[in-house]
């Protein structure tokens, strides 16, 4: 299997990380060597194996739906790069 530049561009778009041509070439090389290494898994037959999704063999605990943190607006926006009256500010979305 081989990851080409077109695939890199596609993944870059999906992951919202802009990548220039030079980086894309380097990434294609790196990812190909990593996937060559990962291909080893195909040696194993796993048709009848249940996937392991969690090592913790307990079911998630339920809790009552109560508000526990109140009046923390200020804390929530405290680290935002840009805010205005308790709102996050982003570049204009609607023309």
């Amino acid at each position, binding site marked *: 299997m081989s990851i080409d530049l077109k695939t890199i561009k596609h993944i870059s778009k999906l992951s919202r990380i802009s990548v220039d041509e030079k980086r894309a070439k380097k*990434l294609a090389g790196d990812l190909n060597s*990593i996937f060559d290494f990962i*291909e080893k898994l195909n040696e*194993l037959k796993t048709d009848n194996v249940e996937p392991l999704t969690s*090592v913790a063999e307990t079911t998630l605990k339920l809790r009552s739906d109560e508000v526990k943190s109140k009046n923390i607006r200020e804390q929530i926006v405290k680290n*935002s790069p840009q805010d205005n009256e308790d709102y996050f500010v982003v*570049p204009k979305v609607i023309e």
Partner: protein
Amino acid sequence: MSDITKQSLTELVENIKNKKLSSTDVTKAFIERSEKSKELNAYITEDFTSALDKAKRFDQKPNLDLKMPGIPMAVKDLFCTKDVKTTAGSKILNNFVPTYESTVTENIWKEGAILLGKLNCDEFAMGSSNETSFFGNVQNPIDKDLVPGGSSGGSASAVAGQLTPITIGTDTGGSIRQPASFTGTVGLKPTYGSCSRYGIVAFASSLDQAGPMAQNVKDCALLYEIISTYDSKDSTSIDFKRNQYSKELTNNIKGKKIGIPKEYRVDGMPKEIEDLWQKGIQYIKDCGAETIDISLPHTSYALPTYYIVAPAEASSNLARYDGVKYGFRAKGENLIDMYEKTRSEGFGTEVQRRIMIGTYVLSSGYYDAYYLKAQKVRKLIKNDFDEAYKKVDAILTPSTPSSAFKIGEKTDDPVSMYLNDIFTVPVNLAGLPGISIPAGHDSKGYPLGLQVIGKAFDEQNILNIAFAMEEKINFKNKITDWWIK
């Protein structure tokens, strides 16, 4: 007392309780040594002024019933600390000041410990050499230009270099045990669900665990008993009966059955590692325990599985860094452009690489071939351990396939870097506890570690085995203070 920083945590606690030392004495000593140790680059953020204030306040009204009374301590910069910058070693969190405290650090402060500062680590804990940190690489106190391992490299360096009496790291694929092995220190990766993940910057949520890094097994047991608590704020925290691990620590391991897995004898493993392992087997026997040859047939599939599962979870966890709610933001022409530039400029090379791998294996058309396949193999790896534990109480392996390497030696070849974690990764995939203890030196005089792997929630047992072995090994770390002028 000029030798304060040479004392173990247990000794310091005793000396403070007996009033031979004050918290101020101890805190000052570690601050002074940390100030002289800037070349190690172990700290990302120092909190020395505030630490000294807290120490003075502690001494005015000392509560000597606590487990870590007035003990100063630095922690990995992956734990959120209220009002103290928390970066995860990344540019994207360079200006992030949490408004809340992680459960693990909260537990520590409740027992009287004092924050000294935040320790360097690989960016988002992705790395095995501490070279992916935005804040530069960390020096290993063992030798100049030697990596301390990773991702908890700053933590390992700070404990080995006596900049902090003890510390905490996190371990997703070996990030506590490998650096402990590289620096001649003890590192415990607890059972998944044992220590709360609340307030720890997430990397791969089904694998991440916090754990202690210490100078000896007893210190390690003491800190573990403090940080292991059930926490409703972490949905995978497990409510099980926890011990007083340091009090119940014993070197009596007579009759214990220790498994020796043949698959850990990997191709190209240096003879020094094999010799160390054989020595370890002898120590086990000297302690009155029995060794049994076992098989963990899917061991060689653990790393490829890990490099699907961990990046997949990371790509999802790291989607939150969008330049909107917190952290770094780059200027963009529109919203999407802002996202793409923020993430491109804010994340380093290794993190971008792993996000890309994760995005790819989860993307439409590839999910079954990669992610689902990896989850199935993960099951087989866990089954191997379940099967082995029908016959044995614990497993002994080397911690790493080599001793510490030089800075820059493996940065150009991601796969060779990943191979560092070959002996540690299976433990995370199966959710088990593992401890690395220093067990010898290679021909260059660099430390080498042995790993004891336990059954889930059987930390007491592996701590006991490590404690018994530690006594027989009688390891002395060779720290020359080369970085102090």
